[in-house]
């Protein structure tokens, strides 16, 4: 058995930021991640971030990741890598399988779940062929593992992940044959979309993949036009040669541990679906359990870091390392910053859903910060 004051599950931008704040306040922290290296999805984000300068805008995700790792090392944060958290009990015991062959129970006074998200799939005939993968999977392969999963890539989805990964595929030396978007208009930030368009990649709005062909691997894809109700229009099909199809069709929060713990949920489609209810201190309905990052709704690394800091500060306050007053003041500052990140065309929708979440959270969450 390993004992700790605060166990954090997931060492992505949210978990790392939470660990840094809590450790800085003096708490004994154990940061657990199933990967061999910390960083979550941050080290594949080689583009520059948006937001204000205070949010490290203009800095690339990889550099932010390196900075967070340096800070966590300086603070001597205890980490348990290659540790899969497979269970949670009584809101304080975590069952961790380490290195695939050793079982360990981690007993913690407080827990922060920062497990991130997973990519959505789209089913069409042939969608299970090798060569068809999440856009984030291709991003991981090119930017983290430095291998090209394909040469001629068709991207399904023109949202931010779709256009960012398309551009990164071009940078890695692949050819992006087209970006398809089922909706009648493009979905990503203008800056990223423009870069891909300038590189000569054709965009097809109101289009989707009808089917993929191939025996051991994708060889070609049939695309089709969609009407206003997203029905395929017969006779508009055409075939494109491609050895890879990337699906950039959204993410779903990884909430299993929160379900297992018995947290109450709220359905907010704009944030990715069923989400553990949390209040403005990132506390869930289950005593001693906090959440931060994509598990609370699909957003970006910058919001994940701010939510991580909130959870870290409030967990440390709950453990008695920060006064309630100070935690309140610092939380308010972080909320100002979050509200600023959640502005603009894309941010506003997330902001509205977050406000609904906080309303519910502040109403139903009863347990007190001591």
């Amino acid at each position, binding site marked *: 058995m390993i004992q700790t004051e605060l166990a954090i599950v997931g060492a992505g931008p949210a978990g790392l930021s939470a660990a840094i704040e809590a450790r800085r306040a003096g708490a004994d922290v154990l940061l657990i991640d199933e990967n061999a290296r910390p960083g979550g999805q941050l080290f594949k984000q*080689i583009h520059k971030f948006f937001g204000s300068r205070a949010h490290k805008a203009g800095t690339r995700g990889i550099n932010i990741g390196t900075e967070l790792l340096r800070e966590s090392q300086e603070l001597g944060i205890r980490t348990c890598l290659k540790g899969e958290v497979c269970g949670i009990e009584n809101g304080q015991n975590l069952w961790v399988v380490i290195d695939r062959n050793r079982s360990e129970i981690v007993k913690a006074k407080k827990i922060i779940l920062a497990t991130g998200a997973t990519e959505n799939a789209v089913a069409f005939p042939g969608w299970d062929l*090798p060569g068809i993968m999440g856009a984030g999977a291709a991003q*991981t392969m090119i930017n983290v593992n*430095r*291998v090209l999963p394909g040469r001629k890539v068709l991207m399904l989805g023109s949202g931010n992940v779709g256009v960012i990964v398309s551009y990164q595929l071009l940078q890695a030396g692949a050819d992006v044959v087209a970006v398809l978007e089922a909706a009648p208009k493009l979905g990503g930030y203008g800056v990223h979309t423009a870069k891909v368009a300038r590189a000569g990649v054709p965009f097809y709005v109101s289009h989707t993949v009808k089917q993929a062909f191939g025996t*051991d691997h994708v060889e070609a894809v049939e695309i089709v036009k969609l009407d206003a109700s997203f029905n395929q229009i017969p006779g508009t099909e055409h075939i494109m040669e491609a050895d890879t199809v990337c699906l950039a069709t959204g993410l779903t929060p990884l909430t299993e541990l929160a379900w297992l713990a018995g947290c109450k949920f709220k359905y907010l489609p704009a944030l990715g679906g069923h989400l553990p209810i949390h209040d403005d201190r990132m506390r869930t309905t289950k005593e001693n359990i906090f959440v931060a990052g994509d598990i609370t709704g699909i957003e970006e690394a910058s919001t994940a870091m701010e939510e991580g800091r909130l959870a870290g500060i409030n967990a440390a306050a709950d453990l008695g390392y920060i006064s309630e007053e100070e935690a309140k003041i610092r939380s308010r500052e972080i909320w100002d910053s979050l509200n600023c990140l959640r502005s603009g065309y894309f941010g506003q929708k997330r902001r509205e859903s977050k406000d609904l979440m906080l309303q519910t959270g502040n109403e139903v969450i009863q347990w007190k910060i001591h």
Partner: protein
Amino acid sequence: MNRIIHHPILGEKKPSKEVVIYVDDKPIIAHEGEMIAAALIANGIFINRYTLHKHKPRGIYCAIGRCTDCIMTVDGVPNIRTCITEVKEGMRITTQKGAGVWQKEDQQ
């Protein structure tokens, strides 16, 4: 083969120590510290397993350990997510068929 050596943002790929791993008994060169699935792609191998009922080929899908499409039998242990498991010198990997079988008595 499929390695990205030059990159406009990430720079040149740092030289890595090479290790030999065996895929269905054939030796391939991998880079120390990399994930098995990446080493396979680098060597042009895109099929990780065949499904239980329809025997259809599968490759990586999420590359972050979520979907289990990339599972293979590694050193006698089936169902290993190769996208988040590092290569080791001399590692023996087999393309998994269905649910796979444990290949060593003592690991059952």
